[in-house]
């Protein structure tokens, strides 16, 4: 098997707060292969965005990466000096944020922002960078790019701005794009366009994509594999078809059960009782146990580790081949 573009192992991210250290990410591991789209899904506060920020090295104090490692095509990047990490950001890892309306500097023309980014990472002249910027704008589907390049961000609509943001993220041909809820702030009709754009770019350039979202529909449409996160851990990870059709983890089951279908069955949607624990009060054992219908004694004591289950991997004691004494 070829080496994955991104390999995250046992990542831990902590935030120092007045009431002690909060662990936002606790032992997250996953790989993304070349050209693969990994969807990362979970409720707000599950640690999806923090994982993305940790990979690109933008965790700001009081937060810090407390353990584990992040490798980009084999190179360990979680402990690089800031200046070397800066060279990787934008060049080898591109990032797209949630809100296109606030992602662009309002005082500079979009062209200037693209040219600036290109020239930071690639050794190109002003004219060559401008030509490349126009090509990029055309590639992300902005009409009349040679005119629009001199426009200011406020002259673009939300969807168009997100296209500009995507052009900025891919302007140095990165190997990995981290898209943090790229469609959440957009109209539904525009969402589909942006999703297919990200998908097409990933396919055309062989770029690996980490797509963070809480929209299962987006994941099902775009991703090759999906990681379900809960309270700073990966509950389940596997091929998107398997996880959507046959979720293993009780939490993943709950999530899939909460998706309305168009098939017309008028069953009530399933809902997961309770809400995700706060970081300061994560329960012992499995963090999902207070909300889990299948919880047994071991879940309240032992933290489940990821177990391979076919192509999927699930962190749940229900699938432990060694039967728990108390469950028997």
């Amino acid at each position, binding site marked *: 098997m070829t080496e994955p573009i991104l390999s995250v192992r046992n990542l831990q991210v902590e935030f120092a707060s007045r009431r002690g250290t909060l662990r936002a990410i606790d032992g997250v591991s996953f790989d993304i292969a070349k050209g693969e789209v990994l969807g990362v899904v979970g409720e707000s506060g599950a640690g999806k965005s923090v994982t993305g920020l940790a990979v*690109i090295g*933008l965790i700001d104090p009081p937060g810090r990466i407390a353990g584990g490692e992040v490798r980009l095509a084999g190179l360990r990047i979680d402990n690089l000096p800031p200046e070397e990490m*800066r*060279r*990787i*950001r*934008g*060049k080898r890892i*591109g*990032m797209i*944020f949630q*809100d296109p309306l*606030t*992602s*662009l*500097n*309002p*005082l*500079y023309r979009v062209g200037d922002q693209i040219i*600036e*980014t290109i020239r*930071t*990472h690639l050794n190109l002249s002003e004219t060559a960078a401008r030509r490349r910027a126009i090509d990029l704008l055309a590639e992300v589907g902005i009409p009349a790019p040679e005119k629009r390049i001199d426009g*200011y961000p*406020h*002259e673009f609509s939300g969807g168009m701005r997100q296209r500009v*943001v995507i052009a*900025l*993220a891919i302007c*140095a041909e990165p190997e990995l794009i981290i898209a943090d809820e790229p469609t959440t702030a957009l109209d539904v009709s525009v969402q589909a366009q942006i999703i297919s754009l990200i998908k097409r770019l990933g396919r055309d350039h062989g770029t690996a994509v980490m797509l963070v979202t809480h929209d299962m529909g987006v994941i099902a449409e775009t991703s090759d594999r999906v990681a379900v996160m809960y309270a700073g851990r990966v509950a389940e990870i596997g091929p998107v078809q398997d996880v959507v059709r046959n979720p293993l983890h009780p939490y993943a089951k709950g999530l899939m059960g909460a998706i309305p279908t168009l098939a017309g069955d008028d069953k009530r949607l399933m809902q997961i009782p309770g809400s995700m624990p706060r970081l300061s009060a994560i329960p012992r054992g499995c963090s999902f146990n207070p909300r889990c219908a299948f919880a047994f004694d071991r879940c309240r004591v032992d933290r489940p580790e990821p177990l391979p289950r076919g192509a999927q991997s699930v962190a749940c004691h229900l699938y432990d081949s060694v039967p728990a004494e108390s469950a028997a």
Partner: protein
Amino acid sequence: MLAFTLRRAVQAIGVMFAVGIIAFSMFRFAGDPVNQIVSIDTSAAEREAVRKSLGLDDPVPVQFVRYFADAAQFKFGVSYQFRQPVSTLLMERMPATLELAICATVFAMVFGILMGVYSALRRDTVLAKLFQAVSLIGISLPTFLIGILLIYLFAVTLGWLPSFGRGEVVKLGWWSTGLLTLSGLKALIMPSITLGLFQMTLIMRLVRAEMLEVLRTDYIRFARARGLTTRAIHFGHALKNTLIPVITVAGLQFGSVIAFSIITETVFQWPGMGLLFVQAVQNVDIPIMAAYLLMVSLIFVTINLVVDILYTVVDPRLRATVGRAT
């Protein structure tokens, strides 16, 4: 854009008209001007002659229209104490005040922005905390006290700088400048610091707060995610966004710098308009007071106008709204 500028200019004229009414009414409420001009033993007939020659026997509206028409041509009458046209006196004094105000503002802007940016970017250093402490002093100490302390230290104790006056000045046409001689420059240092210190601390605190605010925005985070250099992010992206409110405050403060130069000019015996005004107040020299009021208002109104126009130059979003609104 042109329509916007024109509309603002019309508003400015309206403001000046209102100030003109106030300036004019000063003459009516500060006693009979004839008494200020003539001596005690002047006969009633002579008083009437003076009154007539000054046009003070005309109806009030006529006098107001005449005053306003004259003022629009920078004719403010004759000073009671100097027996010279007020406009001549003001013109003589204006270069001194403007040079002082400009130096003070440049000093305030340069140091205020530098210190503000530094204390925003290196928030936890000792120097940044020192700046914060110094800025508290600058904001709370009264101007005249700072001036006197500076004089005591640098003029009396160390003897490095002159304690009063403008030093040697050079005439460039009607403009007299102290910027071209060494003694003129030395004389400018302490008054500029005294006058600019308050604005400097104000700008520093504003820049610091704005910069911290801007550094938290999404587009700065996105700029970092694009791998731009720290320098490009701080000084290209963050500082430009910080400067919009700074332009407003610094611009509006320039008006108060000129107005507050009264105190600094008194402390340093600086031969500017402020000193002239203080002398005028002491001698109830109403033409000078009224003219000073009009001049300062004109400067304020002009600055406001310029700041409004500058805004649209810096911020493209305003350009669009202004264009759409007109």
